[in-house]
């Protein structure tokens, strides 16, 4: 399936980064989670933020999306300080899917996806035929057209996540920020959702997401941002970034990195303590 534009305005033009953080410091109360971090999101590709629990990867994504206000530094969206933009203007450029969102019981799929048009509507102009077209396309693009009349709470986890992504698509933004889109999904559904995310980026969107599963992150991303303790440890293409040394440094994980037998990306094989033939391991691995 080749997925295309929904509103005709979200296609990225090659070139400079649209979204970047410049020297941001973010914290909850007195404790700062991120301290003086710089990152630029490359356009038109999938960037995935990985790192151990509590390293600040969700905090970074939430700051990039303007959910959190940095105490220092700025987030720049299309050359402007995101804090100076109106909430609605940000919503027209940047779609956000928070972690594990919940819809009211009984709300239908098409009504949920229709809510994605909110930034483009006003008190007087609450619904137009354009909106209906965009919603239909968003439903079709995520393969949930047949579920349009079903209540969201009656769907499986994977379908539900497709519906939420569909709502974010209906927003018609070139930038999509997804906070752990595969949470609570089994591996098959996680792969399914990530294939969908890949389709979306193929059609020109810029995607930034947070993922827990390192192998899925390696397979589906063009750009990895590896974080530890609120700072960026490494950044770049998975082939360049993922090494046994880096995994040990970032996660304290002993692992072997091999060639993916079904793809051109590296594959991480965690070692742990049991059921492993230690003499089979490369001697240079950190123990």
């Amino acid at each position, binding site marked *: 399936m080749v997925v295309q534009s929904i509103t005709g305005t979200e*296609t990225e033009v090659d070139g400079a980064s649209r979204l970047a953080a410049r020297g941001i410091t973010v914290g909850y109360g007195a404790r700062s989670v991120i301290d003086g971090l710089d990152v630029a999101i490359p356009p038109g590709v999938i960037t995935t933020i990985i790192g151990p629990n509590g390293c600040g990867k969700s905090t970074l994504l939430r700051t990039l999306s303007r959910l959190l206000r940095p105490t220092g530094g700025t987030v720049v969206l299309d050359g402007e300080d995101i804090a100076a933009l109106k909430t609605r203007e940000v919503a*027209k450029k940047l779609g956000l899917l928070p972690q594990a969102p919940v819809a009211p019981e009984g709300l239908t799929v098409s009504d949920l996806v229709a809510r994605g048009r909110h930034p483009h509507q006003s008190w007087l102009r*609450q619904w137009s035929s354009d909106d209906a077209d965009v919603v239909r396309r968003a439903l079709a693009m995520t393969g949930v057209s047949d579920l349009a009349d079903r209540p969201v709470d009656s769907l499986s986890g994977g379908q539900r996540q497709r519906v939420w992504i569909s709502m974010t698509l209906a927003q018609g933004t070139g930038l999509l920020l997804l906070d752990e889109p595969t949470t609570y999904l089994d591996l098959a559904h996680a792969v399914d959702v990530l294939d969908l995310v890949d389709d979306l980026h193929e059609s020109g969107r810029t995607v930034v997401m947070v993922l827990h599963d390192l192998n899925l992150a390696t397979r589906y991303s063009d750009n990895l941002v590896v974080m530890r303790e609120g700072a960026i440890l490494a950044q770049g293409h998975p082939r360049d970034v993922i090494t046994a040394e880096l995994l040990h440094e970032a996660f304290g994980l002993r692992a072997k990195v091999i060639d993916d037998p079904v793809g051109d990306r590296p594959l991480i094989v965690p070692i742990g303590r049991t059921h492993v033939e230690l003499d089979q391991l490369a001697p240079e691995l950190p123990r």
Partner: protein
Amino acid sequence: MNGADVEAKGAGAAVDVKADVRASVAPGVRFGGVSFVWRPWVAGVTLLLAVAGFLVFCLSIGVGDFPIALPRVVATILGRGEQVDEFVIMDLRMPRALAGLVVGVALGVSGALTQSIARNPLASPDVLGITSGAGAVAVFLVTVSGGAATAVTDSVGLSAAALAGGLGTGLLVYFMAWRRGIDGFRLILIGISVNAVMQAITTWLLVTADIRDVARAQAWLVGSLDNRSWDEVNVALWCTLGLLVVVASVAFQFKPLHFGDEVAAGLGVRYGAVRAVLLLCAVLLAGVAVSAAGPVPFVALVAPQVAMRLARCPTPPLVASGLVGALLLTGSDLVARTALPVSLPVGVVTAAVGGPFLVYLLVRANRR
């Protein structure tokens, strides 16, 4: 990035996903520059509720020591009645009936707002302590000030005190529940606690007060529409209308809040400001209702839930909730006055209907 460039690209790209566009999406209607989603069922239910509300309102006016037939009531309200009817209807009975409508609408909308904001059907002004806070302050005024302030407390003073009490309690609950945002459960737990404290204060005031004051306070505390004057009704009417205008102007921004703060923010809603304004409106609406009719129980809790089920909406519909509230209150008042051998205050009937309904809601929620 060049705007024209994107436009041109977009024109070509937008045609691409044509496949599979048969999905049913709610149709829209347009009148000039105004467009909105057309939901026939919701519109039909709302219209029926409005008609039913008006009929019960007229029926309520017709019933009394001097019964007036429904057509004559309607004719008089429309300004084409006979003089003798006009006096009975407009001067004697209208204030009571109108107070029922206004208080019902105010409570229904207030409940719909608080339940939506907390994303929990239990979060009504009664449960959050707003009504009991208003009641405690009013009882304080009646009992502690005693006979000295009776002249003040008789009319405007009591209403103003109740309104201030409701507002104060509402703000207290809101700020105590605030912790980097508002969490529905925390709001309800704090509301229940504050509610208990307010009721304890009320009981203490009643136990220690002079017996004549207690009788007056008790009558007020049950919630009643007896002896309303045009002055009192006018204040409640205009306050409610003003608040409804504010609610209507913000209601559009309110829709995404049903999905939680983060999704709402992603959709371009300044959720903190929208929620604060609507919660303030909800508290004031409840306060106005209590100051006009006393703390009539359960209407604010039940009306939005009934409206949701009738209109088949996943969230409390604001207009229908107000109409159900009006229907419920006016209907209960009619029942209280006519169906029973003794004339009861309206609050007794709404409690008798609302109590079992709350149990039903809780049992249903538990089974899930």
